[in-house]
């Protein structure tokens, strides 16, 4: 259809997205200017055609970052350049034009589909919004989308409640694909699904990526799934990216102590490995993002922090450590 505009048309820049110094503070009313620093100075790059995995524990700001990147929330400060355009300044039709290229798949397939719309209407809505094709084209496209995600194309008149969780997630994926995006953010897109269904959806996401040269930002707390799907992985802690590296380097040679602790805490489905595995226990709990610790934010829980000393006084920068393409924000990177 004429709306199809391949992502690779502007091939020159290998980066699809560059986030530099992004901040998002949510002010707390009545607390004298205090704010939840959900995203607090993030630098991130996403290359064309890759899957970047974004991991971190609840409250680390990964979902807020995803909403900044997709321009669903305005950033407090910083630049987010998507396909050559800074989207933090865009308004009106210019913003809409960028949004067509980025779509999102959400965690809860029960909450993210309107229960009173038929599947056909749900899938046609984005096409209507962007006035893509004639009515006949749109109807044909809806059937094509259903087929793409492995559903029966004759299901257009059914309602979401008639589908299982996995099938609903397929509808969510079809909706994201409707407008031919080049970039899809998957925010915990497989977390709510049963394991056998999860495998189906993961395989589907991989197939679609290959077929349409999609770029994914894959956010999840399940690090095994993230390693399986991603080319590179970024780790967030308390509003900041603390390490980014190739998916194998980050697992084999983590440079930041938080990454190392996070990876060591994941159980493996193998009793022999489990008997030997010794998780690195972190002290205490994640500090409040209203008032993050001084210096390195991780110093209060870090097993190798020098406190008092450089770790509690000076904030480490994201710098190359370890393998090629690996950056970590730690004064003692690689010394865990």
């Amino acid at each position, binding site marked *: 259809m004429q709306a199809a505009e391949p992502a690779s048309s502007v091939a020159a820049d290998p980066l699809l997205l560059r986030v530099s110094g992004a901040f998002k503070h949510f002010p707390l009313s009545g607390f004298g200017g205090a704010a939840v620093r959900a995203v607090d100075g993030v630098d991130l790059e996403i290359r064309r055609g890759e899957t970047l995995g974004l991991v971190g*524990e*609840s409250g680390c700001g990964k979902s807020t970052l995803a909403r900044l990147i997709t321009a669903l929330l305005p950033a407090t400060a910083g630049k987010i350049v998507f396909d050559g355009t800074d989207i933090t300044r865009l308004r009106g039709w210019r913003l809409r034009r960028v949004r067509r290229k980025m779509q999102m798949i959400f965690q809860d397939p029960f909450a993210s589909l309107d229960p009173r719309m038929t599947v056909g209407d749900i899938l046609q809505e984005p096409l209507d919004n962007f006035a893509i094709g004639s009515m006949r084209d749109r109807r044909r496209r809806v059937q094509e989308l259903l087929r793409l995600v492995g559903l029966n194309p004759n299901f257009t008149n059914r309602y979401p409640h008639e589908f*299982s969780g*996995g099938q609903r997630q397929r509808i969510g994926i079809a909706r994201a694909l409707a407008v031919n995006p080049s970039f899809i953010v998957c925010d915990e897109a497989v977390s709510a699904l*049963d*394991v*056998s*269904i*999860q*495998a*189906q959806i*993961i*395989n*589907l996401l*991989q*197939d679609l990526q290959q077929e349409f040269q999609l770029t994914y930002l894959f956010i999840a*707390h399940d*690090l*095994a*799934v993230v*390693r*399986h799907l991603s080319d590179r992985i970024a780790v967030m802690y308390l509003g900041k990216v603390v390490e980014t590296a190739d*998916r*194998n380097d980050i*697992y*084999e040679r983590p440079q930041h102590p938080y990454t190392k*602790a*996070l*990876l*060591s*805490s*994941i*159980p*493996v*489905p*193998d*009793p*022999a*490995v*489990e008997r030997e*595995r010794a*998780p690195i*226990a*972190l002290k*205490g*709990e994640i500090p409040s993002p209203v008032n993050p610790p001084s210096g390195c934010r991780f110093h209060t829980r870090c097993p190798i922090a020098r406190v008092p000393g450089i770790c509690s006084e000076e904030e480490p920068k994201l710098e190359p450590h370890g393998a090629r393409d690996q950056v970590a924000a730690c004064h003692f990177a690689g010394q865990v």
Partner: protein
Amino acid sequence: MGQTLLQVEDLHTQFFTSRGVVRAVDGVSLHIDAGETLGVVGESGCGKTITALSVLRLVPDPGRITSGRILFRGHDVTKMEDEEIRDFRGNDVAMIFQDPMTSLNPVTKVGFQIEEAMTAHNRFSASLARTRVVELLKRVRVPAAETRVKDYPHQFSGGMRQRAMIAMGLANEPSLLIADEPTTALDVTVQAQIIQLMKQLNRELGTAMMLITHNMALVASLCERVVVMYAGRIVEEGPVEQIFRSPQHPYTWSLLRSVPRVDEARKDRLVSIRGLPPDLMNPPPGCKFHPRCPFVVDRCRVEEPPLGEVGVNQVARCWVLMRNVKGEDVEAAKASALSVEAAQKLKAEASADPEAGNVAGG
């Protein structure tokens, strides 16, 4: 170990809905020895939680235990009077749930709730209960336990709440702790702490544990023995090492291969199990797994296999068994997302060619 603590025999729990009878638990037999850790795994709706709730006789309303025996130290739980069952629930068995926020009362102090669990079952006097609360919170490694007893649940983090729930579960020194997805709602680092805690408690206090989960990795980490459930039935059971090394039921096999491992760099495709779990109101004839099974043979469609011995202490409910499946069929099932279709095509070709007649009964 050795002494049998809990013995469930041919348990049937059914839900009588307006649309028909749902056979949520359909002939489950299992046992737990004193001090043992048993994992019960399966996907949503396989009956694992209802089995646990049946043991406590807490099956929610349209549901009823229709037949079977649940023997706890020789006493049949299904025949207990109200007074006895109350005593049994608090003193002998405790259960912890997935979501620690909804299982604590938000308007009562955490310390008081744990205290209440003890006084309600008359196990400890009121004054003794009060002193034990701090001791219990310390045992589950809640920092600054002396001051935290006066906190309300919202002042606790998710991990702390789950610790408080475990403390409450342990308050009356039960001999069996049933944990239903105890770490699913928690972050990975917190999850690791809770797993560690449960291991220690099992070792220190000798509390037997029944861990209900969909997470195979958790079972590998915590359990000695595992029961795999599908559509209300046990399809495989055995020692953890053995089941993980050589699963014999195709469902167990697929389940183990459908999850990526964090310690592996492979970028193979995951084995996905085609289709959906069956409707328990209307289960398929024959083996309940046959519509989704990549290794199905004709007999599977008409006759349900019994739980047969397949190894030392290992039983599986399958006519085929993984060890009899031909290598190329296994490879085909692993090969693609459309594994099932691919495998069946191979099978169709194989059966068209009588020379290649393969997977005969086990």
